[in-house]
């Protein structure tokens, strides 16, 4: 185990931001910290980075308290692109390497290594301002890596990127993980966490409300498959769902219906004949469903309608679906 966080508590402005946070991360692991805005992710990030001092709790890195010199073993990648745009990639990296105490010939070696890690060797001498958004993001990661830390903390590393750039960052993070680094990742993209992280913690109101591998977390939803249904009359739909003995959850403008067994799209549509359905899709249980379940607050007037079907828990089998389900519009 590389990182050990125990009983982290923090109050800010009289409000409890972290209420006894515990988690660990192993070497060569990507640990995802998820949660809604205000859940305490940034505070946790700032404490781990050394910018805030917690009211209580302990953080250990490789068995040693994370303070003073031990902080050099941590690399920080903030959410914002925090670079000097007029300086070149190489000049930015040199500056940050020296800030972290890299000296002499090691500076150029680390700068070159970091540029290679993020695939920016060809752009090493270009000013940052001339790089694309995706390249700037990769350099932002490289700055966190330049002093060769054992652990890298990444705050929303792909925010605002197009799909191609995001995939490049994902590949980079996988490479770093495979190289033995521990990555602590906060993200609002659930698909990103599901794809990259070996373990995920979901923070709610400063406490870890759920934790586990993506498979373990998905296994908490007592369904084999989820039907996302868009309906002109949600009340009628939900009445039908309950009449069928199924559980449902609000999911934006849709209703997520938990199906105990896999069914064809036609079979599901047939169950709701007579209900004015506008759209229907089937997908295996996703992290998004778990996240909604853990984080979601009951809507006013709907809390009493959160009904699990009898025996639902017994059907909480782990189902590893090959791909997400198709989508169709119901006639």
């Amino acid at each position, binding site marked *: 185990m590389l990182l050990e966080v125990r009983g982290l508590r923090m109050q800010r402005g009289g409000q409890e931001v972290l209420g006894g946070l515990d988690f660990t991360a192993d070497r060569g692991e990507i640990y995802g910290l998820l949660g809604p805005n205000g859940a305490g992710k940034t505070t946790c990030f*700032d404490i781990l980075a050394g*910018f805030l001092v917690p009211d209580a709790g302990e953080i250990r890195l490789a068995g040693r308290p994370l303070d003073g010199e031990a902080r*050099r073993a941590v690399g920080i990648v903030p959410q914002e692109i*925090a670079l*000097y745009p007029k*300086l070149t990639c190489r*000049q930015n990296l040199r*500056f940050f390497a020296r*800030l972290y105490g890299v000296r002499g010939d090691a500076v150029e070696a680390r700068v070159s290594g970091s540029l290679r890690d993020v695939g920016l060797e060809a752009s090493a001498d270009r000013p940052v301002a001339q790089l694309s958004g995706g390249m700037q993001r990769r350099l932002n990661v490289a*700055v966190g890596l330049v002093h060769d830390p054992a652990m890298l903390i990444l705050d929303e590393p792909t925010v605002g990127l197009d799909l191609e750039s995001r995939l490049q960052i994902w590949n980079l993070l996988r490479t770093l993980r495979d190289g033995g680094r521990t990555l602590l990742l906060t993200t609002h993209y659930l698909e990103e966490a599901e794809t990259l992280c070996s373990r995920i913690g979901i923070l709610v109101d400063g406490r870890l409300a759920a934790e586990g591998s993506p498979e373990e977390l998905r296994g908490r939803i007592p369904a084999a498959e989820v039907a996302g249904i868009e309906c002109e009359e949600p009340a009628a739909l939900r009445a039908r769902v309950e009449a069928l003995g199924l559980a449902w959850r609000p999911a934006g403008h849709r209703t997520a219906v938990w199906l105990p067994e896999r069914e064809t799209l036609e079979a599901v549509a047939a169950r709701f004949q007579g209900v004015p359905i506008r759209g229907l899709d089937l997908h295996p249980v996703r992290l998004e469903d778990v996240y909604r379940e853990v984080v979601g607050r009951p809507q006013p007037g709907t809390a009493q309608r959160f009904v699990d079907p009898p025996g639902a828990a017994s059907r909480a089998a782990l189902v590893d679906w090959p791909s997400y389900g198709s989508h169709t519009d119901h006639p």
Partner: protein
Amino acid sequence: MLNVAGRILLELGSTRRSLLFWVLFPALMLLLFGLIYAEGGSTGHSFDRTAPGILIGAALFFSCLGGPITVLVGERERHTLKRVLLSPLPPTRYFLGVFLAFCVVAAVQTVVVYGIAFAFGAAFHGSLPLGVAIVGLSVLAYVTLGFHFGARFARTTEEVNGPLAALGVPLLVLGGTFFDPSILPPYLMAAAQLDPIFHMNEALKAVSAEGAGWRAVADHMLVLGGFALFAALIGLRAYGRLLREEGGS
């Protein structure tokens, strides 16, 4: 500290507009006022009298006061300040790095201003160490004041330039940057005594143009030293506050 100073100088080097302004503006002002006051008299003497004020007011004021404000605001806008502060670099070293960078800028400006003045027959008549001490105290006062404004008030670069010109230029004029303050009416002369730039100008002018010694400029040095100390205190206080704010952001 050297790393921070080097990075700031590297950035300034790539921002040619600022460098051009910081060199061209004082050079042109010195040429203009030096030649205007030379009319009917000695050019060398005119440049003797003009160079100190131009250095303190037209050169150091904009670079060493405006520069740190721009650096801090830029660091905030680009989110690099937090990243720097998250590193093991002690915050005081960052502060000293900025100070060192602008000491280098001040040294270059001094060479340029006095180089032009010497080319027109001026000379440095007094004690060089005393002149360096006056310029050094002025730079310290400007940089720490710049830290105060940059940390306390300015959030964007647009917020820097307007107030700096609106408040600064009248202080420069009152401080005798562009003319001999002996022509000021008594009530404005009394006001000028409260302007730290007046004391910077008068002290450097006395040493550089008149060959005055420590005793002759002791009063100005006392005010200047006190002001530099005050500026350092409020600058460091605002910087400490900025560190806490960045932590809370």
